């Protein structure tokens, strides 16, 4: 890199270009997502280890309502589509469309969460408690931590919407939307993995 060009640029723009050309927050989000892979990996491993250890409690085949969870999975995946559309809107500067899609994303996420909550109440009513067996413990831990991630995502989406009402989000700083979108898509992708491992692969 030509040194004179670098210093000239540094003086011109508020944020100097970074060594990799990708902004710090975006790179930070990618690095954090790398860490999250191990976070969920540890819980998925625990689940796979304990899926057959049902003691006298319910077994996966007897308890899961696959059509219901498939619908809520579809809802969560659609929220990723809405997130993409929200990002496209804010990059194009169409703030009205952005607010619609960012709220739609949050709403779809919240719907997924209510579905999970409903599912848990049904399970508990059928005698599947956290401490029933290693299978139930690892199931609740994995899905609850995923739910917590979705809830934090919904909070961030709503905060994005509220901030955009104050006029502080626009095409000039659309990257914050992109970064939260990265997080949101990651949480979705993890759910695809969890849904496959827990619900679709028949065990027990």
């Amino acid at each position, binding site marked *: *890199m030509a*040194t004179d060009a*670098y*210093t000239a640029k*540094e*003086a011109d723009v*508020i*944020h*100097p270009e*970074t*060594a*990799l050309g*990708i902004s*710090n927050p975006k*790179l*930070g989000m990618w*690095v*954090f997502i*790398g*860490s*999250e892979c*191990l*976070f969920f*990996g*540890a*819980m998925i491993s*625990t689940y796979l*280890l*304990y899926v057959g*250890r*049902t*003691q006298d409690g319910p077994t996966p085949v007897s308890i899961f309502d696959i059509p219901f969870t498939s619908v809520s999975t579809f809802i969560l995946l659609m929220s990723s589509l809405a997130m993409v559309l929200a990002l496209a809107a804010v990059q194009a500067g169409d703030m009205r469309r952005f607010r619609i899609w960012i709220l739609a994303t949050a709403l779809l996420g919240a719907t997924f969460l209510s579905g999970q909550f409903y599912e848990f109440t049904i399970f508990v009513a059928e005698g599947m408690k*956290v*401490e029933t*067996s*290693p*299978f139930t*413990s*690892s199931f609740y*831990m994995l899905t609850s931590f995923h739910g917590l991630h979705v809830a934090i995502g919904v909070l961030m989406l709503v*905060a994005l919407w509220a901030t955009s009402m104050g006029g502080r989000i626009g095409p000039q700083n659309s990257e914050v939307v992109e970064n939260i979108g990265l997080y949101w898509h990651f949480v979705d992708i993890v759910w695809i993995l969890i849904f496959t491992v827990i619900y679709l692969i028949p065990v027990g």
Partner: protein
Amino acid sequence: MTAIADPTKAVARRPFFARPTATTGPWSWFTTVDHKKIGILYGVTAFTFFIVGGLEALLIRSQLVRPNGTILDENLYNQIFTMHGLTMIFFAVMPLSAAFFNYLLPLMIGARDVAFPRLNAFSYWVFLAAGLFLYSSILFEGMPDGGWFNYAPLNIIGPDPLSLAGAGPQIHQARMLYYSMGLQIAGIASLASAVNFIVTILNMRAPGMTLMRMPVFVWMTFVTSFLLLFAMPVIGIALWQLMLSVRWEVPFFDATNGGDPVLWQHMFWLFGHPEVYILILPAFGIVSEILPTFARKPIFGYAAMVFSGIAIGFMGWGVWAHHMFTVGLGPVANTAFALTTMFIAVPTGVKIFNWIGTLWGGQLRFKTPMLFGIGLVAMFTIGGLSGVTHAVVPHDTQQQDTYYVVAHFHYVLFGGAIMGLFGGVYYWWPKIFGWMLDDRLGKVHFWTMLVGFNLTFGPMHILGLNGMPRRIYRYDAGMGWDLWNLVSTVGAFLIAASILVFMRNVASSRRQKVPAGNDPWDARTVEWMTSSPPPPHNFDEVPVITSRDELWHRKYAGDDGEKVPVPAGASQDHGEHGGHEGHGIHMPDPSYFPLIVAAGMPIAAYGTFYEGPGMVILLAIGGAITLFGIFGWVLEPTAE
């Protein structure tokens, strides 16, 4: 960030979440986001914890000095050795390394700060909160007592309840909650700093600072950060499982209800073995800076140094079950992990030979940092060799849970990490404070520590091979252990004396304040180009890097020893741009919010100790403080 902004724009309005501005005075230490101040905070706090952990070690050695010691009972002894381990690993060595990362990393890559200055402050405050939380257990019903590995099922059922008069199970539960929540909080700090340092290294390098021109210390920081990034979530999950197990009787590790105690061991050591590289790689990096400077030669085999560090980082993930050879995983698993463990000695050996190659034929100057550097190479080699003996499964079966293991890991962690870190303290002290530490007292410190260290831990090899188990609070006379335990205790007090020499050195050198100048050691890397101590913005002019050992090449141009001194601090490439001397360089404002976000965490963690309303109230207060802090963090005017 390194933005050069028009100062008139910054003071447009003062909204509700205004940022504090003071950069001097006591209060500024609570709001600082300057990586150098945070580095000093890390260093002072970690040294304090190091003293506390050292006093615990002296208690242990005093108890064991003679057969049937009476200073501690079994209950207290278990707490003391557990806290010694936890303190030294999580609150002394890791944050001491973090102190060097914080202070030096931006300076070494020619940056003005880390990528996320407030996240950096957040890491420190969370680390401090975790340490205070863990030690607050003294005020309640006793400290964690299950060892730093805290194996299941002991962590579930606890010790013999009769030894804890009265409310045994409740006391045990509280101790395990201090362990799980305290380490959980400390893990958040490590995770945040790992993200921060990785982004800083990848993104904030000065022009021309390619990856293969980075100092070896920066490379080791990079590898360590990745190890933290991937190891912390694993132990995080294990700690949540432990918390749920002790608090709500969730059967993760309860064999009577289908759980598997060995799962805890796998999770713990899948974190725990990368953790030992997290502890030693920073010291490796420090020594890789010290040896070339005092041998007046470039590091021997730079690329091999870097790639062996990366290889250790990768292979460190495939050796964890060598901590579990006696669990009964079967011959196939034991053989596989024995082989990987032997293989990981190869990149470590590459490093040892490269350090020797660096010294070979150099113009050696035996200043204090150099002595500590050589001390690491020698002592770590002993510990590394005894480590290879653990890789031999039948041999390891003999050594499991004996003092031989204690000797091994103190040779790598004290003889390795602590030696290297003290070398770093002596080496960079003049840069950080602007005055020199006394070399004569430093050498007294080194030799006392070296002799004391070998007296303490050398005999433990013999004790272990003679069958003395770890974690016993007393032993009978006539086992053949009396002499070496006595020697070991004498050595421990000699180490304590050496630390007193160090503190005395700091105090007396502070009175004399022998000015250091920019480059007291005739060093090689760019942190020595700026003033000592560096200005808040680090460099008046960001250096442009044209080679490894950039400063050396600026001082001594030409390959054949042709010396063309260039004044330190002046960049020959930037003469025409020089002269603004830091004016107009806008550094990030201080912030209250990292401290506030961190403060909520231990409060919420106390919530797990209670039932019903007490739990809800504490969780709500802690959560509200943290949430308020996060909102303030996001909404305050930002210059990052």
